[in-house]
């Protein structure tokens, strides 16, 4: 059965740090900048943003998705899945198939190929593949200057779409490449020259050779060659090794200098960029690499009648904000007061959060069938507060609205951003939401301003990451 990409979405955090800024402390700049997660962002929140964009690009609702395949090497958990949370936020049915892939920045490609097989085999009709990463790098390490952050999601489905998934091959040999033990804070690297030569270049070259053999198509006959890479040098050397001309690398070579190494999102971001510029009938080759495994796969571009996803990479890049190395250290909690974050009223693994899943992750309210009032939070409102009615039905609130009123707090305990806006929103769907602001400067807040609700990490306690909606201006 034909398997196609039906839509895609990209998310890159708003914050950037120039590698020169890092080099001003540690030396050794190579130019460019990298994307940095804000204090309330992580691999999960970025995955949500990318997935929502991809679903909207494919014009699908969450409940139409049969499976979610997630690939990341920076899940907040060593044990505990995060696809269950994604499923709640995206509103899939409880019967959705969930798969979490991990282990290296190639995890997302393992997820992509497994998902494509699931569709090809007829098990799923529409499925979501997400690659997301926010890998931790030690201060002063080369990886600190290269590890970016971002997420890409693709909707795969049977039938015609933006591009078909064609052939795929893999090549693997066991050796220790970059690694992070379960109790390590940062990714480690033994000898970059050894891993580049023996690992990256050799594995990718073998995979490319195998793909050309399988498809009977030589590298130069592909219109777009998208290569996963840890740095521009790796890209340059691999392109030379497989004899891929520079003009075919256009889609992927601009990503690293702008965002850094996006890890599990990197190759998918390259494919997404290629699709954005590709013409009907063009062939695309993509090559992954991570920890001793390389996959190469081919795609063929379908009818060119789709718009760019929202937000586009151009828009994400336009809204960027550069930060200093000190701010970077504070966001990464390397620079810290040592105080634990202000605790939640109840511990995050408690049943309160299970009962609150509807309001916290799906943004549900209880609509009164009598007077229409939207009672929120529904886990705490079983009688309509306006009319006393007891016939209530769950409904989903809109994630957009206008500011009704707000304040900005300048004194907060550890674990909060300062200044911190508290914003009351009149939602487009009716109903109100009160939440903390994110990525907002106090001076720009106005009554009546257009805002959206975005899922962010509220806090982390007992190792549990707690997520909920914050309020962000629409720019």
């Amino acid at each position, binding site marked *: 059965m034909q398997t196609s990409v039906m839509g895609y979405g990209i998310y890159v955090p708003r914050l950037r740090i120039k590698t020169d800024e890092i080099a001003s402390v540690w030396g050794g700049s190579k130019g460019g900048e990298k994307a940095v997660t804000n204090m309330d962002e992580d691999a999960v929140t970025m995955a949500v943003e990318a997935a929502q964009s991809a679903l909207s690009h494919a014009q699908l609702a969450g409940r139409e998705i049969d499976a979610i395949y997630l690939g990341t090497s920076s899940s907040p958990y060593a044990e505990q899945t995060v696809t269950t949370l994604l499923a709640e936020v995206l509103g899939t049915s409880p019967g959705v198939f969930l798969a979490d892939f991990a282990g290296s920045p190639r995890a997302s490609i393992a997820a992509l190929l497994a998902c494509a097989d699931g569709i090809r085999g007829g098990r799923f009709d529409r499925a979501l593949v997400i690659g997301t990463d926010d890998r931790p790098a030690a201060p002063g390490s080369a990886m600190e200057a290269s590890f970016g952050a971002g997420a890409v999601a693709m909707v795969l489905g049977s039938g015609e779409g933006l591009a078909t998934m064609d052939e795929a091959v893999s090549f693997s040999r066991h050796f220790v490449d970059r690694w992070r033990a379960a109790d390590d804070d940062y990714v480690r690297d033994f000898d970059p020259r050894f891993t580049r030569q023996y690992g990256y270049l050799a594995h990718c070259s073998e995979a490319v050779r195998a793909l050309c053999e399988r498809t009977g198509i030589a590298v130069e006959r592909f219109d777009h060659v998208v290569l996963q890479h840890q740095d521009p040098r790796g890209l340059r050397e691999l392109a030379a090794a497989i004899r891929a001309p520079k003009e075919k690398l256009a889609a992927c070579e601009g990503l690293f200098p702008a965002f850094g190494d996006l890890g599990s999102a990197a190759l998918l971001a390259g494919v997404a960029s290629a699709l954005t510029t590709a013409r009907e009938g063009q062939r695309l080759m993509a090559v992954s690499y991570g920890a001793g495994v390389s996959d190469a796969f081919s795609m063929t571009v379908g009818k060119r009648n789709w718009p760019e996803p929202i937000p586009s990479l151009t828009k994400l890049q336009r809204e960027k904000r550069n930060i200093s190395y000190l701010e970077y250290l504070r966001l990464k909690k390397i620079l810290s007061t040592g105080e634990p974050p202000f605790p*939640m009223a*109840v511990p995050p693994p408690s049943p309160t959060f299970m009962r609150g899943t509807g309001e916290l992750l799906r943004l549900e309210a209880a609509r009164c069938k009598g007077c229409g009032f939207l*009672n929120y939070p529904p886990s705490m409102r079983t009688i309509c507060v306006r009319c006393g009615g007891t016939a209530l039905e769950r409904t989903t609130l809109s994630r957009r609205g206008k500011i009704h*009123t*707000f*304040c900005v707090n300048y004194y907060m305990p550890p674990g909060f951003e300062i200044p911190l806006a*508290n914003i009351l929103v009149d939602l487009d769907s009716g109903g*109100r*939401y009160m939440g903390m602001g994110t990525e907002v400067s106090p001076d720009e807040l106005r009554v009546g301003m257009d805002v959206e609700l975005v899922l962010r990490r509220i806090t982390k306690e007992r190792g549990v990451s707690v997520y909920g909606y914050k309020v962000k201006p629409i720019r």
Partner: protein
Amino acid sequence: MGWNRVAVVGVGMIKFGELFEKSYEALLQEAYLAAIRSVDKGFDPGEIQAGWLGTCLGSAMGLEIPGGASLAATVGLVEIPVTRVENGCPTGSDTFRNACLGVASGVYDVAIAIGVEKMRDKPTEESLLSIAAQGHPILSRGGIAPSLFAPQATRHMHEFGTTKEQMALVAVKNHHNGCLDPYAHFQTEITVEQVLSSPPVSYPLQLLDCCPQTDGAAAAILCRADLARRYTDRPVYVAGFGMGSDYLYLTEKERATEFAATRRAAKQAYAMAGVSPRDIDVAEVHDCFTITEILNYEDLGFCEKGEGGRFIQEGKSQLSQLGGSLPVNPSGGLLAKGHPLAATGLAQIAELYWHLREESSVSNRQAHLRRGYALQHNVGGFGIATSVVTILTNHAD
């Protein structure tokens, strides 16, 4: 009405402030003794038949023993029942209200209401932020005390054109009054410019728009009105009281430009006393933040909704000596006198008791008495969903 009239025959409070050297129990005992000693014709504590102890942070901070026995045991009244009251910022006035109910019901002839709060034995952050851990774990997160009032200020500014200068005038007035009140935490004059240039706390509120954190205690002795002459020739009578509630979250409230609990409490109190806002000669109202006092003018019916900013600007709430037609917070209010939560309401009762008796201790700020009615008000608690209003009078009938 089917209730016995209630009189106040003695009040006492301690100098409010950062009382690092005094324990919670010492605060309580000092206010208790001050109330006992204030009774004109002398008073035997053995006549007290029941007590109500207001203390708010006891449960939140774990420092004090918050049960009613804290009062009974520390002043030697172990024979009597003591109920502990905790109801947010109106705890003091709700303590007084419950003591009133005890006497009005006919079960007790003489009762004591006492409110005590130790705010400063914990760092500012911990006591201020204990509220941030209440309510819904996420929807309430990121809230601090000022952020329960600042959004109303923002919206009031948007809808009615209220200005930060008008809010600052409330702080200037109350700090001036505080200079005349020896019990006040602060005794310093301030200017509008100082308020506006003080550090931001929660936009649009600056530091001097906010009340301080204060230790304090205050008490009142109540009895059946027909027994009051045993204790004093100038009793003050409880004309009426009311208590209103509201929705807990701003997402549920009908308007962000009012505290509806205040409106509801006031409506009950005016009806019970058979008076209207025009009959009030002097008021002690909840000015935890400057915007709160402006909303109170409106919600208590001193002026129309939206007119609160003009009410302060036109000087109507200044002391009688300065030409105010309805002096508000002659004691300095929460802004200057301080806000030891459970002591606040009872300290307001004490101030009004002195004004209605035209005592020499308040001659420097004495309200001009026309009708002989005084109004006490608190609003607060989680979501600012609770308010108590008490109306006192010097009329015997």
